[in-house]
């Protein structure tokens, strides 16, 4: 976790800016997974759920399991789930 993330985690999590993703990458894939579960990103997830680690697939490093705000669980594939047509919907927040 970067210093920027740590600062955001400690204080009240409020992003300063947002841009849309243009190309798919591992990072975008993970953001897509967090956003389908109802979170902005990993920072907000850790802040809301008060967890240190997010369960990930060992092979790809993609997020494996997320708990939504209503305490239900989402499980994700080990392979890519974010299609090219979905990439532009992913939001990248900066703190």
């Amino acid at each position: 976790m970067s210093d920027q993330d740590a600062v955001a985690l400690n204080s009240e999590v409020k992003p300063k800016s947002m841009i849309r993703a243009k190309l798919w990458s591992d990072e975008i894939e993970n953001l897509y997974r967090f956003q389908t579960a109802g979170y902005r990103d990993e920072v907000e997830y850790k802040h809301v759920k008060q967890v240190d680690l997010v369960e990930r697939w060992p092979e790809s490093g993609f997020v494996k399991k997320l708990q939504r705000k209503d305490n239900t669980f989402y499980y994700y594939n080990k392979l890519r789930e974010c299609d090219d047509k979905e990439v532009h919907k992913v939001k990248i927040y900066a703190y």
Partner: protein
Amino acid sequence: MCFLIRTLQLGKTKTPSYAEAFTVKAMMKNSIVKGPKKAGAFKERPAKPSLFRIFYDRGDLPVAVRPEPTGNKISWKVDIVRFDYSHLLPIFFDGLSETTMPYEFFARQGIHDLLDNAGPEILHVIPHIILPIRKVLNTRNRQVIRTTLKILQHLIVAHDGIGEALVPYYPQILPVLNLLKNMNVNLGDGIDYGQQKRENIGNLILESWRQWRYTEENTLSTALYNDQT
């Protein structure tokens, strides 16, 4: 006039009688021997409402559907890790015989989620899921068989040793697959658009069989290696 003669001629012709094969009637001049009746080997055999449907309608299964822009997704009300697989997995496999929404979706997607998160305990569940698999394959519904084959392929890679654990149960699974293995399309140089969607049953069966053989050979070679060392 000509029309009148023709109708009179037609009126004179005897109507042929159809007879069963190997009967006395079949040897008569004017009789036509009927072919054998269809055995119905490929005919669909609709299954009764599954256990999965009963449990879901009663609200016993901790699953809910959540529509997403990319398609529906299952949200589990309880963490999968806490489940008793020997109880839950056979119910989900039984649900594969369903063809209607939401049962079909929950059963299919639920099994994929369960298999993804399965640990070594899944090896003990194999004997319990054979009967539902057999029941599902016996429906001979094409869509159901396609889904089941894809799930069997996932099952094999879900954990080490599952291919080996399935070997004693091949007599339960393989007869239906043997029946349908030639269900392929011979298009010459045409394009089978179902190929990329993995909808061709013949190809799916061949693919699954190769995967099973591969895991078997691997386990056999590992066992031999262990014996030697």
